[in-house]
């Protein structure tokens, strides 16, 4: 993925994730102060993103350390397994919001069990095509998606009573921080930056932060608009994106054309769900290298379908319980993963910092020159290989086949040893 694709993907992902069901659930807990929780989450995300970039830098150094260590491989495998579960659940959240929109809002009475098969097929195919295709897809749809979000925000703003968030004196910060944990599942940006950033080239911290700032501004705005339009009735709405434009269609006698905008924006959600699935596949295939990635993807897709149709099915109570469990799981998982990664990064930073001037790997090649390592080739990498190298031109760079050769040599060696043993 190129840097530009990375930024666009992150922007769409961060918006799509937070303008669906999250504001309605937040409104039932916090009411008019929902936007403050959103701001708090984003501020925490800014810090985590900076740390993610630090970790990305350290990962290159760690690569050498973990090459010959079986323990690190096991640890890595275990870690990646849980990370993949995390991405599956992220994908589930987006999937569920798509279901909510189509099954409950746009359609009257459909058999979602059958309808969602096509969605699973689409996600499966996106996962199969890889991150490169998803990045290009985002690039292609970006203008349409962002314009639809923009127009939705404008339409919503026309009918918003912005004074609905007042009075500020009633803001209960204690309650806001109490509700921090249940909603953290929607704010998994550290993981996304880490794993997607590892597969992108040329990404910079300042642009990532700018993208997040835009996302924050938009999310906070639409959250305020949502509450300004619906006030106490915000909690009983299905999702923010499907209702925010309803009131602005009154004077225009053209039906519900805002639904086309919603559909365009929902395309971004579908692609983001595919992105999470793809990342889950990549993490899991690193964790279980003996199984073919496509089979893993198939299993993940089926799992996603089952979760959505069996657990997150129309009963709201089940959904809430599931989400609560998920939130706590996600929260503690993130802490563990974050702590582990940070610990390893700091250790590797101090340990291998001495070689920072030359930054050579074991083959004597400079790490700066060694741009492209094909994914899944080097089991020593800590987190799912490095990028599918595409520059801004999209032209693939020449790959460094040394690692491939090494692997094939080791295989030959093993075969020889076996033959000798026999």
């Amino acid at each position: 993925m190129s840097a530009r694709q990375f930024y666009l993907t992150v922007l769409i992902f961060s918006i799509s994730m937070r303008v669906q069901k999250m504001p309605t659930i937040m409104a039932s807990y916090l009411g008019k102060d929902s936007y403050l929780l959103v701001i708090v989450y984003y501020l925490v995300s800014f810090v985590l993103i900076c740390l993610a970039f630090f970790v990305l830098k350290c990962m290159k150094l760690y690569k050498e350390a973990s090459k010959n260590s079986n323990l690190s491989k096991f640890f890595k495998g275990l870690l990646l397994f849980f990370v993949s579960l995390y991405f599956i659940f992220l994908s589930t959240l987006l999937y569920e919001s798509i279901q909510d929109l189509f099954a409950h809002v746009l359609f009257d009475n459909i058999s979602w069990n059958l309808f969602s098969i096509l969605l699973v097929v689409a996600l499966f195919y996106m996962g199969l095509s890889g991150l490169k295709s998803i990045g290009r897809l985002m690039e292609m749809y970006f203008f349409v998606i962002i314009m639809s979000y923009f127009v939705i925000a404008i339409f919503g703003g026309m009918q918003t009573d912005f004074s609905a968030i007042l009075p500020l004196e009633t803001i209960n910060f204690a309650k806001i921080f109490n509700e921090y944990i249940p909603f953290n599942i929607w704010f998994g940006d550290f993981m996304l930056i880490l794993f997607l950033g590892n597969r992108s080239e040329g990404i910079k911290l300042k642009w990532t932060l700018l993208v997040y700032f835009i996302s924050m501004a938009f999310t906070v705005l639409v959250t305020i608009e949502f509450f300004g339009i619906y006030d106490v009735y915000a909690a009983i709405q299905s999702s923010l994106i499907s209702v925010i434009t309803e009131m602005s269609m009154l004077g225009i006698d053209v039906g519900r054309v805002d639904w086309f905008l919603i559909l365009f924006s929902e395309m971004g959600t579908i692609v983001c769900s595919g992105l999470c699935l793809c990342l889950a596949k990549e993490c899991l295939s690193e964790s279980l290298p003996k199984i073919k990635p496509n089979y893993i993807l198939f299993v993940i897709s089926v799992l996603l379908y089952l979760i959505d149709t069996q657990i997150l099915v129309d009963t709201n109570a089940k959904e809430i319980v599931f989400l609560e469990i998920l939130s706590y799981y996600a929260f503690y998982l993130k802490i563990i993963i974050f702590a582990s990664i940070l610990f390893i990064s700091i250790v590797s930073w101090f340990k291998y910092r001495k070689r920072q001037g030359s930054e050579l790997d074991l083959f004597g090649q400079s790490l700066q020159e060694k741009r492209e390592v094909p994914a899944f080739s080097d089991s020593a990498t800590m987190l799912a290989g490095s990028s599918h190298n595409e520059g801004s031109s999209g032209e693939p760079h020449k790959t460094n086949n040394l690692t491939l050769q090494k692997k094939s040599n080791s295989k030959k060696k093993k075969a020889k040893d076996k033959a000798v043993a026999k």
Partner: protein
Amino acid sequence: MSHIKRIFKRHIGVIILLVLLLVFPSSVSNQAKLNMRIIVTGIAIDKVDDEYEVTAQVVKNTPGTETPGTSATIELVSDKAPTISLAMSKLSYKAGKVAAFSHTSFVILGKSVYESEGVKCLDYFIRDKIIKASTMLLFAEDKASDQIKKTKDIELSVGLGLQKVFLYKERESDGLMITILDFLKNSENFSQTAVASTINLTTNDESDENGKSSSSSGSSGSNSSSEGGNSSGGTSLSEDSGESSGENSGESSKSGGSSSGSSGGGSSTASSGQGASEYFEAQSPIMCFVGGKFACKLESEEEFVGFMLVYKESKNCDISLENEESKVSINIKNKSSSLDVRYENGIPCLDVVIYIKNAEINEILTDKIVNDVTYSEYARIEKAIKAKIGELVSTCFEKAKSAGADIFHAYDIANKFEFNKTKKLYSSYEDFVKDLRINVDTKIIKLEY
């Protein structure tokens, strides 16, 4: 195993296609097809014997005639049930097809409902995902079903576009277009005061002479052929239609009289004059609710205009000034208002500032021929306008205050912008309203003559 794998790999596309074809027959969804649906455009709710009587205005389709939407005919269907949702589901299939509520544009609550229990029945409409939250809310001064019956005789573009009519009326300070969501939101805020317009369709003299046939006189050619059938189309209305039209004609003549005045307005006709018999009443009274319960009705012209002057959505307004010598008619083309609450010696004071951005002296009725308005006369007129506006707004305010209604949402403003003080001084809404005073200021930016 490898053989199976090979087949699978080679023919994966065919297999997926087969699976999809098996899984997706055209009857996969439980949805009724469009030609099995009937569109509900309006709902009226009354309470009869502790049950809700829901009357729905549905659009009748004439097959194969390619009838444009503006000339289709309306039917009425109704049913009773202990709850609104039960009643709605009962009348869903009454017309022989599945009712589609997604295009419902208005809901009329009858007197029997709002006087007995307020507006709690509106909870159904705010929760239901099919009916939009932007559906207009109207009140009937008597039976809602009578009013909805009369909409049948209005030209359909008006009948279906009742919401649009009220939108324009609102802009012209002739009525209010309040959605269910806005009404309920206002009921839930600090002020707990919500307002909405009434609908009062009057019958003209011609149709009064015809008596019972007033409801069946066609509004346009395409309606006339189906009118005979339609007048008894609703299953539970055939008995009532004769009676209700008689009652209404009596009532409407009363309200028709009250609406005529020197103010610009008069009864606005709903049809293009091809024999339509129903008319909207000008300046329909505004119903005022506090905490979901009926509080008062702003009936008189002064109260109505006073409210509309402050109401932000209305832009145009007509006021008239009168003294011993002359009568002057002012047309306000563009206005806005700002409200603020301050405390004077612990007493809340609502400052209302009305900005007249563009106004015009339409008419001067006096004995002498006025060629030009002198500067002193102009100043006098301006002064008179300000005084009149102050008077009108105060009248409205006092009427609402007397019923315990904070019609201009002063308590809401006070809580939002002066929360601490308000909390300290007036933790109770009723006390606040009791002590609330109003101060009206008018700023005329442009007055043409």
